[in-house]
């Protein structure tokens, strides 16, 4: 394994771009301000269709913000973040176990789709101590195995038996650039059809629904318990992939519940995707604390009562 401390997040992410183009498993990690700097290279990696893994342990912003946990980088992570029409595959762990597991999942998806993956964590999951079971070590693929499994695109040196491999995101002819973008969009539709991951709890008899990911989903589990003690039948849907987003599942649940509360440590970002999924079938509201504040389960239950039930 090669490990290098780069001079900046800009350089680190561009090293990732270079390493990805060699067909190697490459990852980089940072917290929000650093990830903003990585966006340049992430856009190039998406444009050059290369696999790579980025980890963002989110802190509150904007600007230098705070070093406390937040979920305010949802837009940046799921909607592209850098320039151009692209998406990273975004995985949202809610335990230390998943922080470990999603590294492998992130790489698998990145190679399968030749696309950047991102683990979107937060300062709470990122600093928590929990028991972790590490899976058996899998030896990394050889150059030949990568070619067999994922295709012969890596820049490992042009041998006599093939054309030169060029990794680039440049196509100056607009007609061809449009064709390339159509191809990218096809890939995103495939991701949306095949790679949505989510988890539900207490939804069978639910009249209301919390939608929450990462740390917020753990706090919401407690809020579900408190609410149910009070006789409020609430369940939880936790998106595990934030992109692709569990649109269909939320839309179906909207036929069952009377309202949904998107609980995020942000001023309301994922709530927009929940609203789009639900297509105005039921009221959708947002509750969040931000700037590094973590909401309490009681606050969340109170918000459900005030914003949705009384609503």
């Amino acid at each position, binding site marked *: 394994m*090669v490990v290098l401390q780069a001079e900046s997040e800009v350089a680190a992410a561009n090293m990732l771009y*270079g390493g990805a183009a060699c067909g190697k498993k490459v990852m980089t990690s940072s917290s929000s301000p650093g990830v903003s700097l990585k966006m340049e290279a992430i856009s190039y990696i998406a444009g050059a269709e290369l696999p790579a893994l980025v980890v963002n342990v989110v802190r509150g912003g904007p600007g230098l913000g705070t070093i406390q946990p937040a979920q305010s980088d949802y837009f940046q992570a799921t909607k592209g973040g850098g320039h151009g029409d692209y998406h990273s595959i975004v995985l949202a762990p809610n335990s230390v176990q998943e922080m470990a597991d999603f590294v492998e999942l992130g790489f698998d998806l990145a190679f399968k789709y030749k696309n950047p993956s991102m683990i979107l964590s937060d300062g709470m999951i990122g600093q928590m101590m929990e028991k972790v079971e590490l899976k058996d070590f899998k030896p990394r693929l050889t150059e030949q195995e990568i070619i067999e499994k994922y295709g012969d695109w890596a*820049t490992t040196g*042009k041998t006599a038996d093939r054309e030169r491999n060029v*990794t680039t995101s440049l196509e100056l002819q607009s007609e061809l650039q449009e064709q390339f973008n159509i191809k990218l969009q096809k890939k995103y539709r495939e991701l949306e059809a095949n790679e949505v991951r989510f988890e539900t709890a207490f939804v069978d008899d639910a009249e209301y629904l919390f939608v929450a990911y990462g740390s917020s989903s753990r706090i919401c589990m407690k809020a579900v318990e408190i609410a149910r003690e009070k006789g409020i039948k609430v369940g939880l849907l936790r998106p595990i992939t934030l992109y692709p987003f569990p649109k269909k599942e939320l839309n179906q649940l909207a036929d069952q519940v009377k309202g949904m509360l998107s609980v995020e440590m942000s001023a309301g970002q994922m709530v927009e995707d929940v609203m789009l999924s639900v297509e105005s079938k039921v009221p959708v509201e947002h509750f969040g604390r931000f700037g590094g504040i973590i909401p309490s389960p009681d606050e969340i239950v109170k918000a459900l009562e005030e914003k949705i039930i009384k609503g």
Partner: protein
Amino acid sequence: MDVKDIIKEENLAYKKTKVLTDNEMHYCPGCTHGVVHKAIAEVIEEKDIQEKTIGISPVGCSVLAYNYIDIDWQEAAHGRAPALATAVSRLMPEKYVFTYQGDGDLASIGSAEILHACNRGENIMVIFINNGIYGMTGGQMAPTTLPGMPTSTSPYGRDVKLAGNPLKMTEIVAQLPGTTFVARHSAETAGAVRKLKKAIRKAFDNIDEKKGTSFIEVVSTCSSGWKLQPDASNKWMKENMFPFYELGVLKDE
């Protein structure tokens, strides 16, 4: 004697290296880029390292260098080629990795990446094409633009009080312990190209010997950007660029 008798393999005085593709270059007449591409390609052929060489092309007029030199290439973001090269060389230490960068790319937006790559002594070659301007985007002032030199964004000449003085990147990187070979060349005559090729060969040899970063500046012209005929550009370069950017080997360890 018929033409057929003359055009024969044994009468061939010059042959294009196989490492250059047959693609027609997009460069303007008189441009230095094509000459330097050819020099690099010839050394790759002479050293027989086509299968082991990976180039990193920049943003600038030479962004499409991958269309001309028949090796594997990565196309970097503006200024970031040394970061990509760092990864490629560290992940595949047995390969010959080089960046090819303009002066806007290397000395301005990519100044951090090049300094740190050289300081870490990455085992790569850097080719630095200094034509004193941002050629591709319309001849704007670059960090390398000479004092008083007119450009599209300094039509009355570079005012150093306003824009600062030109950066001599080659002198700067020569001070760093990570660099092993630092030289400034040109490519306007056959003799100059010969010297340049020798430097490129040395740089590739240094990669063999894992000696650290080899950095070769090529003082270049940009006829279109300078708004001069190619021959007048060469004259202008010799009279104005050479006294400021002195040719020669700055470091050879």
